[in-house]
């Protein structure tokens, strides 16, 4: 296969031309005849009873068409927004799920929660009308702080407290006894700061209803349109699946925040039929801050036991996870199955126990955000390992090496329910140390000191789990959906190929990577392969893109479908060459038997124009596959951060960052580098800059870029990224997943570097200048 476009080639992203020339087709770019505009009414209070809502004046505004409230959606029998993962408490009881109506009916529970929708001819009229809706609220005392929520009085009527679940994993007795007899125990209290996702494109929806056919169509910013359709159909009961098409056109970033089925997209779809006109809603940035699901927000107490030689004997974590006011689509799974299971990290810690209290608060729902659970787990493991090294006077690198799972330990079963298939952690660490010039650090530190700067270095040897799997086990553990992916490879009569995937690209570059995979597998030119995704009307089914699963799961489905194409093509070719299929080999796009050769294009043509064709075979050359992975994939790597701290102001500058990751085989190294860079920038954002803060009244004080600090180009260094390769053992491409690793590994490395520079045990994220200055000044 052509090395310029095949697997392993740094092919430029074919989708970028339309993006950078302004020809992308984002939801808000789309317009349909008769379209109206929707504006949501949002709660100004963190917790309040809803009284009378008077829309009389609003409906007087010229162009105002309708005002809907939660009472209307309730009257129409719209179902609640479901949480897709039923987590059980350790006593076996189901999680306490508070009902989550698409529009609040009797009580609002976070600032920004939608309680109504105004529809008008124009956006200006809709806004004006929205301002004139008079709603009475009776304010109630909100519960805001994560750590105090469990003890506070319940925010939801009908629930006995704010504890959604009390979940655990691992052997508590064994862990406690190992800690009791450990030669040394390191204890750390950690906060994983709340983050607010900021995809470049805010959420949007354009819903239409055709009364003639009874068909609904929702075009929206979704990472998984089939899931959206399933929920709107089966749970919210807007329309059966065959009457509802969901299209996710070009989507400008998601980072997890567009996985979820939200109120706005749902209500707009329902309302399109009520109004009898298409409705468009596009979130403003300030709405996105309030009403997109947030990320992280954990408070954890952790203990790590070591024996006299420095071997880890036990790890215990007690975590309170803020779930927000309602359980978002996967909100329950993130601080449990995606967090607790990763606490072994890269180490052979024999005893691990984790307990997670998922709590309700009067804040925006919290759900998966780039990394989802694994950054939180990595932060606990890598912070406490670093702290243990310092407390016991060991080199942080040597302590990690001593405890690492070795290449011949695989498959390795952790005490927290995972089986790692493969890896070589020392190899990544060695390479990273070399690239970071660890040996030269002391000199660099001395040089910094002459300039009034303190220098620190920090490590993070992370592991993560991508491509949640397998379906059967996950469903037993409470997942409400399967975890496979579908794919279809259609060889057109003249030999070009259309590929359909249930995976969705919103920045990841599938249109390029997946075309590389199929073109490589089938030996057809890269330019002859088109990738279609994000449309329930065109793609059979799909579970979408999240958890770095696209290539490992969706790509594998395309391999399976391609193999079926080759198998069928082999039978057709054998017939045409008058030989047995077993005598036919498929190589570089051609079926070969002895000195006879037929290209895939020729065979495809024969399949659609079956003149000389096997009598027992259907015409056509199009194949589908569902791929259900047998295990997660386990990307892992070593991140090394170096920071300089300005002693006078407390400003932390990230001066060097090395990431060596093992993603298994790599299809397109340029795209992988890009994914890592983006993830690292987000990790740097979490460690140093970003913080979603609510005040005591539950008002979001960081509701715009004036206060919510996103990382910018000058906040990050020129990243040094490299890879090592241990191929995944259980998927056909040997790939693992690279989308989240940067955000998973880096926060711990950066905070370890800051604490190293300051000589302090801990500093909370984000390590803001004032906080650092206070540490330096002993305040």
């Amino acid at each position, binding site marked *: 296969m052509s090395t310029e476009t095949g697997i392993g080639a740094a092919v430029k992203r074919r989708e970028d031309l339309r993006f950078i020339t302004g020809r992308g087709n984002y939801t808000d770019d789309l317009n349909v005849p008769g379209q109206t505009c929707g504006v949501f009414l949002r709660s100004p209070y963190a917790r309040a009873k809803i009284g009378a809502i008077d829309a009389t004046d609003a409906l007087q505004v010229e162009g105002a068409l309708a005002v809907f409230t939660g009472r209307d959606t309730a009257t129409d029998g719209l179902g609640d927004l479901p949480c897709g993962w039923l987590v059980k408490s350790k006593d076996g009881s189901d999680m306490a799920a508070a009902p989550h109506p698409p529009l609040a009916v009797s009580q609002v529970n976070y600032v920004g929660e939608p309680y109504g929708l105004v529809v008008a001819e124009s956006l*200006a009229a809709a806004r004006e009308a929205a301002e004139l809706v008079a709603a009475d609220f009776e304010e109630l005392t909100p519960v805001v702080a994560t750590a105090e929520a469990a003890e506070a009085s319940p925010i939801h009527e009908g629930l006995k407290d704010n504890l959604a679940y009390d979940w655990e994993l691992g052997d508590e007795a064994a862990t406690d006894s190992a800690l009791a007899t450990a030669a040394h125990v390191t204890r750390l209290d950690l906060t994983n700061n709340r983050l607010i996702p900021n995809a470049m494109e805010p959420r949007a929806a354009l819903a239409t209803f055709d009364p003639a056919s009874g068909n609904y169509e929702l075009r929206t910013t979704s990472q998984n349109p089939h899931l959206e359709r399933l929920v709107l159909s089966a749970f919210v009961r807007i329309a059966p699946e065959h009457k509802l098409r969901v299209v996710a056109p070009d989507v400008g970033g998601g980072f997890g925040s567009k996985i979820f089925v939200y109120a706005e997209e749902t209500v707009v779809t329902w309302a399109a039929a009520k109004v009898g006109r298409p409705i468009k809603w596009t979130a403003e940035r300030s709405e996105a801050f309030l009403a997109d699901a947030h990320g992280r927000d954990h408070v954890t107490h952790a203990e790590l036991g070591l024996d006299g030689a420095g071997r880890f004997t036990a790890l215990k974590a007690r975590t309170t996870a803020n779930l927000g006011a309602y359980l978002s689509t996967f909100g329950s799974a993130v601080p449990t199955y995606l967090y607790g299971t990763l606490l072994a990290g890269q180490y052979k810690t024999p005893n691990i126990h984790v307990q997670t209290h998922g709590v309700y608060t009067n804040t925006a729902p919290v759900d998966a955000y780039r990394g989802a659970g694994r950054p939180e787990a990595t932060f606990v493991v890598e912070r406490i390992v670093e702290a243990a090294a310092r407390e016991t006077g060991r080199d942080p690198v040597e302590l990690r090496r001593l405890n690492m799972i070795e290449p011949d330990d695989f498959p390795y079963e952790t005490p927290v329910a995972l089986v790692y298939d493969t890896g070589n952690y020392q190899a990544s660490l060695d390479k990273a140390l070399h690239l970071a010039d660890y040996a030269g650090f002391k000199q660099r530190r001395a040089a910094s000191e002459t300039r009034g700067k303190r220098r620190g270095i920090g490590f993070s040897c992370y592991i993560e789990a991508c491509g949640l799997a397998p379906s059967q086990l996950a469903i037993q553990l409470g997942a409400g959906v399967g975890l496979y992916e579908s794919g279809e490879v259609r060889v057109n009569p003249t030999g070009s190929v259309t590929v359909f995937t249930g995976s969705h690209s919103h920045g990841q570059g599938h249109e390029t990577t997946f075309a590389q995979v199929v073109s490589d597998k089938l030996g057809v030119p890269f330019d002859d392969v088109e990738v279609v995704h994000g449309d329930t009307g065109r793609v059979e089914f799909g579970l979408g893109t999240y958890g770095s699963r696209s290539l490992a799961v969706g790509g594998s489905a395309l391999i399976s479908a391609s193999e079926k194409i080759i198998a069928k093509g082999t039978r057709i070719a054998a017939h045409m060459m008058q030989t047995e299929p077993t005598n036919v080999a498929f190589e570089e796009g051609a079926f070969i038997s002895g000195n006879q050769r037929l290209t895939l294009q020729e065979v495809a043509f024969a399949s659609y124009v079956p003149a000389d064709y096997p009598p027992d075979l259907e015409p056509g050359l199009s194949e589908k596959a569902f791929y259900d992975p047998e295990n997660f994939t386990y990307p892992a790597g070593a991140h090394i951060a170096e920071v300089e701290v300005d002693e006078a*102001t407390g400003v932390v500058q990230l001066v060097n960052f090395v990431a060596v990751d093992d993603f298994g085989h790599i299809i397109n190294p340029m795209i992988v580098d890009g994914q890592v860079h983006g993830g690292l920038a987000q990790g740097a954002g979490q460690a140093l800059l970003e913080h979603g803060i609510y005040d005591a009244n539950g008002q979001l*004080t960081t509701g715009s*870029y*004036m206060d919510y*600090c996103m990382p910018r180009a000058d906040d990050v260094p020129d990243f040094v990224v490299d890879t090592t390769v241990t191929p995944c053992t259980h998927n056909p491409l040997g790939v693992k997943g690279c989308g989240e690793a940067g955000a998973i590994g880096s926060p711990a490395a950066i905070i370890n570097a800051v604490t190293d520079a300051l000589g302090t045990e801990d500093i909370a994220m984000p390590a*803001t200048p*004032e906080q650092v*200055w206070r540490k330096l000044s002993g305040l």
Partner: protein
Amino acid sequence: MHPFNYHKPSTLAEAVALHQGAEDPAYLSGGHTLLPTMTQRLAAPSDLIDLEGLTELIGIAVDNGTLSIGAFTRHAEVAASTEVQSALPALAELAEGIGDAQVRNRGTIGGSLANSDPAADYPAAVLALNAVIHTDRRQIPADGYFRGLFETALEADEVITRVDFAIPSRAAYEKFPNPASRYATVGVMVADFNGTVRVGVTGAGPCACRADAFEAALSARFDPAALDDAELPAIDFNSDLHASAEYRVHLVRVMAQRATARLASL
């Protein structure tokens, strides 16, 4: 945004007359403060009177120890002006550090001073460089211009036409940016007029102010160490998410010392 009437007067007198005749008018300069508040529906003027093109508000000139900048001069123009760079490099540098490229290409010095955001950069320079604010009807000395939070000596319909800065023998501006907005958490300009030092501070309190004790200390001995124990301005220090009052107090001194150190090492 609410609907409004848009006017583009061609003379200063016409602009003022339009303002006086309208119900709830606002002058529009670069629009980088006014328009965001309108799109957020926090402001809803009935009439916008665009100042672009008024000749009285245009131009940069150096004359007899004074640098004069028209009110409609954009930050990017100040930063790139060779006159400013040679007469008052500290001011060019200050302008280059405002916001981002889009903001600098739209925002104007007149708009910034009329608005008097507590975290804006120019006010520190206006005080340190003993500027005179020229309006359609009078001249306002720097020391009488800033009155409080978003409050200035301007009357409602008064238009800033230009700002005259006294050119010092040397000056430097040090800004500690708010990490999120990149406005000044604290900004300090130190200007030395042949041994008489003026220090303008922005970001610290409700509006820009001078640091008298710093000025006295530096006039006596131009050395960062002279500020070690000098008293801070007697203002109510701001406190927000990004910097407590205590931290700002510290930063004012550090920024002043850094500005001094830069000049002392020249």
